[in-house]
């Protein structure tokens, strides 16, 4: 049933009786043209765009748990395209454009909310670095504004301008940035892909990747062998584990990133704001909770939870920036497994194994990339060549030196 005000009102009168499952809970077929491993945002989007853009509908998405059970449902919902390096800029802007038309495209309200993303700066050097980035964005046709202190004050008058250890001097603002209701992205893509014939197979864990003559032939799963002409890996923090099944080592470490939500309160902040002198960024959800985060815990982990030290670090950043947070209460904190790459940028590429494709290394930026990652990964799988927007995300760039290191932290994943 198409979603609209009319269908909602109609069902209100009918006791909501006629709604159907939003996606088919499919059982695996013997073989598919493409098997996507990972039923998160990226995997589902990839399946959707394979069907929509390339007419490839004999596709299965294999999910070891349930749809959206990984990072797509554990992030802080921020979308933006305020990157500074030419390898990243076109890709993230492509993603932003897809966000802007997503809801009409997939007929699902994912609450794309372009409330603005404001990165604060606290020194002249930081201002200049932001100017460099903002100028690069502008040269690519992306909106970016460099605000001075008063410009920031007009947006967020409640932050500490008077007694701060690192006084706020201004900010880089991307007004088109904002937030998206994360779960809805997974569900919306699942529904849209399912409607186009994609099989979404939940509770189906991949345990092996079968190869013959240097080409994949399918995957072993907890629900039996599933044949596939092509296999796309889109499993974020589990990328190295899947790669190990074909004896590949990746330039990736899995790290835990914690995220936080406060109790719901009436509207306080109307943009996404990041502290430039500590680890803290914040926005407010439509439900009223402040959603915030900071830095990764900094050690390899598959445990989906972090430790107290990082929590305190994030809260200190919050209080330093916004002293009015003191009496607000933290409601929940949780962790996700980040596929931290060696230069902080992702990989969307073929591998040396025929028919095996990799979408990984998203660090903590994977959510905002969901539409474009799906779009470009689908292109790579369908056409066997990179999409121009993801052309820089090659697996061999670490050997050639074509690194995309926005932060300049080098080959240390926990510093990106």
């Amino acid at each position: 049933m198409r979603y609209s005000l009319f269908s909602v009102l109609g069902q209100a009168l009918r006791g909501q009786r006629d709604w159907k499952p939003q996606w088919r809970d499919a059982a695996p077929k013997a073989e598919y043209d493409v098997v996507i491993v990972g039923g998160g945002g990226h995997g589902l989007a990839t399946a959707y765009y394979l069907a929509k853009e390339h007419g490839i509908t004999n596709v299965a998405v294999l999910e070891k748990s349930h749809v959206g059970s990984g990072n797509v449902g554990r992030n802080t919902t921020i979308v933006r395209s305020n990157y500074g390096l030419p390898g990243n800029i076109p890709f993230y802007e492509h993603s932003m454009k897809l966000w802007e038309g997503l809801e009409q495209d997939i007929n699902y309200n994912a609450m794309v909310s372009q409330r603005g993303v404001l990165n604060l700066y606290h020194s002249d050097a930081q201002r200049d670095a932001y100017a460099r980035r903002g100028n690069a964005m502008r040269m690519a046709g992306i909106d970016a504004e460099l605000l001075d202190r008063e410009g920031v004050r007009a947006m967020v008058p409640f932050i500490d301008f008077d007694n701060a250890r690192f006084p706020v001097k201004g900010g880089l603002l991307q007004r088109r940035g904002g937030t998206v209701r994360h779960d809805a992205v997974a569900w919306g893509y699942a529904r849209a892909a399912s409607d186009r014939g994609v099989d979404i197979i939940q509770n189906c864990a991949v345990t092996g990747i079968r190869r013959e003559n240097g080409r994949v032939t399918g995957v072993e799963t907890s629900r039996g062998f599933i044949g596939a002409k092509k296999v796309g890996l889109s499993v974020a923090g589990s990328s190295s584990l899947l790669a190990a099944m074909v004896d590949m080592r990746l330039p990736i470490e899995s790290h835990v990133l914690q995220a936080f939500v406060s109790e719901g309160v009436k509207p306080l902040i109307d943009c996404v704001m990041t502290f430039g002198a500590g680890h803290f960024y914040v926005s407010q959800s439509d439900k009223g909770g402040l959603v915030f985060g900071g830095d990764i815990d900094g050690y390899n982990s598959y445990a989906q939870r972090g430790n107290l030290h990082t929590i305190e670090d994030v809260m200190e950043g919050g209080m330093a920036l916004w002293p009015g947070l003191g009496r607000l209460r933290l409601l929940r904190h949780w962790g996700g497994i980040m596929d931290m790459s060696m230069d902080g940028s992702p990989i969307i590429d073929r591998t040396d194994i025929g028919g095996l494709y990799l979408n990984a290394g998203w660090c903590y930026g994977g959510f905002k990339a969901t539409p474009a990652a799906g779009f470009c990964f689908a292109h790579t799988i369908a056409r066997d060549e990179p999409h121009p927007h993801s052309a820089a995300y090659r697996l061999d760039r670490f050997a050639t030196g074509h690194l995309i290191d926005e932060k300049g932290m080098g080959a240390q994943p926990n510093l990106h």
Partner: protein
Amino acid sequence: MLDRTPTFPLPVREAEQAGPPQPFRTASGGLIDRRRARDFTFDGRQLTGYHGDTLASALLANGVRLVGRSFKYHRPRGLLSAGSEEPNALVELRTGARREPNTRATMAELYEGLEATSQNRWPSLAVDALSVNALLSPVFAAGFYYKTFMWPAALWEKLYEPMIRRAAGLGRAANAPDPDTYEHAHVHCDVLVIGGGPAGLSAALAAGRSGARVVLVDEDFRLGGRLLAERREIDGLSGSDWAAQAVAELESLPEVRLLPRTTLFGVYDHGAYGAVERVSDHLAVPAAHAPRQRLWRIVAKRAVLAAGAIERPHIFGGNDRPGVMLAGAVRTYLNRYGVLPGAHPAVFTSSDDGWRTVADIAAAGGRVAAVVDSRPDVPVALRRMAEAAGAQVVAGGQVIGTRGHLALSGIEVRDAYGSTLRIPCDTLAMANGWNPVVHLDSHLSRRPVWEEAIHAFVPGQLPTGMVAAGAASGRLTLADALESGARLGAEAAESCGFAAETAGTPRTDPESTAHTPLWRVAKPRGKAFVDFQNDVAASDVELAHREGFRAVELLKRYTTLGMATDQGKTSNLAGLSIMAELTGQNIPSVGTTVFRPPFTPVAIGAFAGHHRGKEFRASRHVPSHAWCLENNAQFLETGLWLRPAYFPRAGETDWLQTVVREVETVRSRVGLCDVSTFGKIDIQGRDALTFIERVCANPFGTLKVGRSRYALLLREDGFVLDDGTVSRLAETHFVMTASTANAAKVMQHLEFCRQWLWPELDVQMVSVSEQWAQYAVAGPRARDVLRKIVDPQHDLSNEAFPFLGAAEITVGGGIPARLFRISFSGELAYEIAVPAGYGDAAWRAILQAGLPYGICPYGAEALSVMRIEKGHAAGAEINGQTTARDLALGGMLAKKKDYIGRVMKERPALTDPERPILVGFRPVDPSQRLRAGAHFLALGAEPSLTADEGYMTSVAFSPSLRHWIGLGLIRRGNERHGERVRAYDPVRGGDVEVEICNAAFVDPAGERMHG
């Protein structure tokens, strides 16, 4: 207020009771202090309670039952519980900057002058305009918003979303700087006891008596747990007296620390726990020098989880009506607070302990309207007891609906024969079994397991070192709580090496916990709520099932069940049970309930503690700090350092004027700059030189004793890590400097190389950054000034102490010092290091000695201007993205040795001649200002990513050249001197034509510093 007034005569108030009458207060009993009246207000209404009350009990005592409005439908809500699981009774506590939204009335201790306000209603609690939402509830089903608000697209952000946001959220945050303070504290113990009820007290006693270090935390302000709420006997004492006795003994044990008002909110790895103590929340304002809250980091070898259990509500139509309460809560209000929540209470039970409510009400002299037991067989004794209390007993019946508007006025009961009875009552106590508090043991990703005997989840595999006792472990009787607590407390102490004696378990009066859960009432009348706070009804769970959201996580996220501020303490299992019924599975097959920290919400300020405002991070002060403060220096944050940035003089109106004067003074006369912030690493040992060769990219084999050399450090990936100097003070004694920003990183890197890469090298390394105050004395008269400072036996002539000389000297008549002839400014310059304690003296002495030469202090800004004039790379260029070649330093790389970064810097993309390289830029029109961050474009090129040729890294107004100059990275820059390009800076509206030039703007031959 529309609350019902009591219609039965309450017993005569006792004379010693202070304050005005409280209509629902019993005549006697309870653990409140009736002689200490506490005045408070709720929505402006003046009320009085007693010391020992919570806001909730005081409201009930005054007959206030409508306390809040629900999140979505704005339905009237009252108190469901008497504890931290409360989903409904959330209020704004206090006012002004201290306003705390979403405060559970059940946990707010009453204090004199307390001000509470209801929230999420307009214009008032009784008349709430948005209660119209309740009429639209057929539309507002779970997830309806995912299906609409999409057309037209533009209206989402302009209309729909602002509307939703205004309606959402519960209370209003103060959003003013928090006037109170918070602090942290650490405590280590052998045995941590979580919960101060019968199991916890027993565990603490058993462990404490053994001499083990014990910490007991409880969220309540009074220890005793359910012992305070039930009429029980232990060894002939009342439960509360037994608890008081236990507490007294624990207080007498020197190694036991009791932390009431302290919530253990999180369990972390390896025996680390987080707890928050509400030090001052029971006061109007914190006492002088006391924090509002204290965050405890507890490290425990063993933990006994004795956090009790939470009672389950029944799911029936209108079960959210104010007056419908958990039976255990009714007993708490009655027995602990001396409040009978209603004049006509009824009881709806599926368990034997529900009947205790009847007995307790009767014992307090109250009457009971009805007892509905969903089980068909009611023992005769219970029936008689209830009938004696005036109750109509309905066995095998179910409450299917409620009546009333803002408060309960009656219930609809379907009896065993299917007939519907209407029973007037103003309170309904629900008893549907108890859920052990499995929250804390699931924080470490462990799943609870289903225990069929009690129809509840109990802890599964517990975190290492943790055991569960009493109700938290599923042992629901008092006797079991006392026994398991004592036994596990003793075992915990023993496993820490203490000899614990197991005293006999105390005797208790008999009890029955027999229970047949009623997961939901069939065919309810009206909305049957599962999650009260998020307004999730049983029908929403059905809808989620219909739409395929059957996995427990999907159910939760789609319906928001369990995602409110109570994290579903009273609702998660109910949701699971309905999904189990719909999918034809048993409950554990559907899933388990997993809870995330914190156990209850924790103030963000408590986590931050001391670290806010100026104390967010430490401030490091330079040795000349006192002089700088005395002399109006303006500071600049560099990492943690406060560096003097510039020193304005009277009459100077802007920073640039000051900086220009400082630069001109250095270039023409002499200046003094505090460069103590650079890292200084003392490197000694037989293999010190070998070590330095391996960590530096340029060669050091020829460095002589008494000489310094520029040092370039790469990361292993071939990019520049940092630069500095290495000075050889003796054959095997070196001192390396690192930049201010990278000092700690470089030290860690060197330790990595020494300890892990080349452990065979005999190298001793220690930071001496803090030992030495180091000052640059720069300018043509630098030698003249230093001559007056350095003790006379040291020859400072150019011949004896040439450029890049390094020496250990003395100053001020024998004070050890170090002198380096290095120059960042390009002038004749020295850096003199004195012990930091003499730093202040040396600074003043040098300024005094320099007076005749026109010396002035200069700050980081002037230093930066001069390094740009000289084309030296600094932080803006050494940004982790540049190679030595990018910085035009490729020529100094060693060819014949291995060093960190040697191999990786040769990757094709890093040696591509198209890579931007560092050069100078000057504006074609000298009046134009340059800005760092501008990108370079060919003249006439349209701005685009492909046209982008690089960017400006640093700029300065050059006092020497009287125009702006810049350094920047541009493709093939070294081959393009003289070429003009655009410096394009759209974010600041800049677009300046610049000419590429040599990066060394001043004295390119470097003659001055050699002079």
